[in-house]
């Protein structure tokens, strides 16, 4: 190893979504020259698990893949199974599913605003955004009885209807959130201290965003107009469409701005749905055995395109369920984006793709010619914040 080249391992237990990841940054002085990633620390064998469970049981297993975007996983699965069975959920059910999708996006994006603000050393913003996020968590709980696994889907439709009282509660909540989101947009695009951590950091051109295979808000912040809700509408997105939000700057500021602006689209479309909720049954009847065949469903999770491939052999259990989450697509970009940046920017670049920091307070080791220094993730973040001051 050259005299001033260190390898900084970060993780495994920290920055990834439901997948805590292990990152190794090679640094030359302060500058990152290489980065590698190791995943799988919470690989639970869910794909394999689906093969031993019935179609209905899998709905509950699948929903537990993610504790943030649980509904979108269950929705992608339900859409695939319904396609195989030749059943489509009634219009009211599709609209209610879409409404849950957008409420989920709101809580996910607000969660991320808080996490990213914390990484930037902006704890007031972190606490405000998480306080406000409670509003949408309460709305989800009011609709379904649950904050995280709302479990609104059944194969063939939904379990919950929305009555007028719930409707009014949602509208009141949205009014408050919209006002707060305006404030967040102002902060992330105008606050000088915040912009020092985000403007011009982790820049990804449109070409790079495509080459690295990024999806969702990360890609859209680099001007890639891709959003499954618009490109291949599912649920009721053709009746209640959303606009694709993009930016051209491709830096962290753009990733912030895109996510915050997407919130306004979610508020708008939820109001649309509530004003025009179709009248119909809540669920169609599903057969117990699913005819043989293959189905692919693509949906737009808060973090980007979520892809399901489902194969049936005609029995009571699936032959194969393949899940490709958006984060696996976005992880690749972190390795590339940190190269050439200061080590101090690494936490923000990681936060920029919106991985889950549920286990972020972990040890970091800095190796210096065989001499290992122990850093915690917090140390690294503090180092990042101190460096920006």
């Amino acid at each position, binding site marked *: 190893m050259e005299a001033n080249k260190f390898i900084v391992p970060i993780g495994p237990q920290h920055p990834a979504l439901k997948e805590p990841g292990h990152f190794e940054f090679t640094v030359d002085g302060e500058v990152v020259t290489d980065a590698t*990633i190791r995943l799988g620390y919470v*690989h639970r064998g869910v*794909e394999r698990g689906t093969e031993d469970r019935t179609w209905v049981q899998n709905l509950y297993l699948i929903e537990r893949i993610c504790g943030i975007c649980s509904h979108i996983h269950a929705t992608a699965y339900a859409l695939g199974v319904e396609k195989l069975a030749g059943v489509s959920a009634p219009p009211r059910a599709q609209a209610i599913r879409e409404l849950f999708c957008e409420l989920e996006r709101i809580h996910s994006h607000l969660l991320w605003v808080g996490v990213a603000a914390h990484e930037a050393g902006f704890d007031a913003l972190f606490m405000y955004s998480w306080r406000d996020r409670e509003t949408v968590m309460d709305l989800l709980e009011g609709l379904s009885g649950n904050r995280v696994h709302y479990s609104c889907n059944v194969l063939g439709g939904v379990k919950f209807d929305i009555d007028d009282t719930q409707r009014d509660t949602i509208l009141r909540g949205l009014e408050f959130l919209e006002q707060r989101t305006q404030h967040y947009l102002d902060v992330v695009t105008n606050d000088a201290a915040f912009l020092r951590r985000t403007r011009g950091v982790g820049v990804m051109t449109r070409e790079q965003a495509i080459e*690295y295979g990024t999806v969702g808000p990360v890609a859209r912040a680099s001007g890639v107009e891709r959003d499954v809700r618009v490109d291949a*509408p599912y649920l009721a997105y053709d009746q209640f469409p959303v606009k694709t939000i993009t930016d051209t700057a491709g830096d962290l500021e753009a990733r912030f701005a895109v996510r915050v602006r997407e919130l306004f689209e979610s508020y708008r479309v939820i109001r649309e749905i509530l004003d025009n909720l179709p009248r119909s049954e809540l669920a169609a009847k599903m057969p117990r055995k699913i005819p043989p065949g293959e189905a692919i469903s693509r949906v737009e999770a808060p973090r980007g395109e979520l892809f399901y*491939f489902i194969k049936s052999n005609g029995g009571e259990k699936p032959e*194969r369920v393949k899940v490709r989450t958006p984060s696996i697509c976005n992880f*690749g970009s972190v390795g590339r984006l940190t190269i050439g940046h200061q080590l101090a920017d690494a936490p923000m670049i990681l936060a920029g793709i919106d991985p889950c920091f549920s286990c972020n307070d972990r040890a970091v080791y800095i190796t210096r010619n065989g001499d290992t220094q122990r850093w915690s993730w917090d140390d690294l973040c503090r180092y990042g914040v101190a460096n920006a001051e």
Partner: protein
Amino acid sequence: MKDATALLQAAESILAPWAKETMRPDAARLDVVIAPPDIVPAARALHAAGWGFLTAITGLDLGVETGKLEALYHFCEGPALVNLRVTLPRDTPVIDSVCSVIPAASFFERELSEMFGITVKGTPHPERLFLPEDWPDGVYPLRKDFNPDRLRTEG
């Protein structure tokens, strides 16, 4: 919104030189069966034409009795979906890496390789991505004959 039929027609003619069999399972989906050595040229042709992006690679075990594995390369463009399908022998499954054309395929190939035991020739980081360091060699958890009991340790 782009028109799926026109997109699929374009993809079909791009892929014609390698297509052994072509199927349209639904209005927005085209499946093209190709020979394993053709995966790189076929992916390169789609990429060169700017047709979509590689969204996922799915591995399938067609069963011990068939002696076959299958890999599906899913490409998306707007509402249209193209699946390149290759069938590989179960005992010596080898396929070329498409990373020279699509660098973002790296994670997908590593997953395919450790879950199904498919050797992806020339993939830039062949080491494990998801399975633990102490996972036994030659055990592939998404193959149909995988027996989790084999992994149980005493105590």
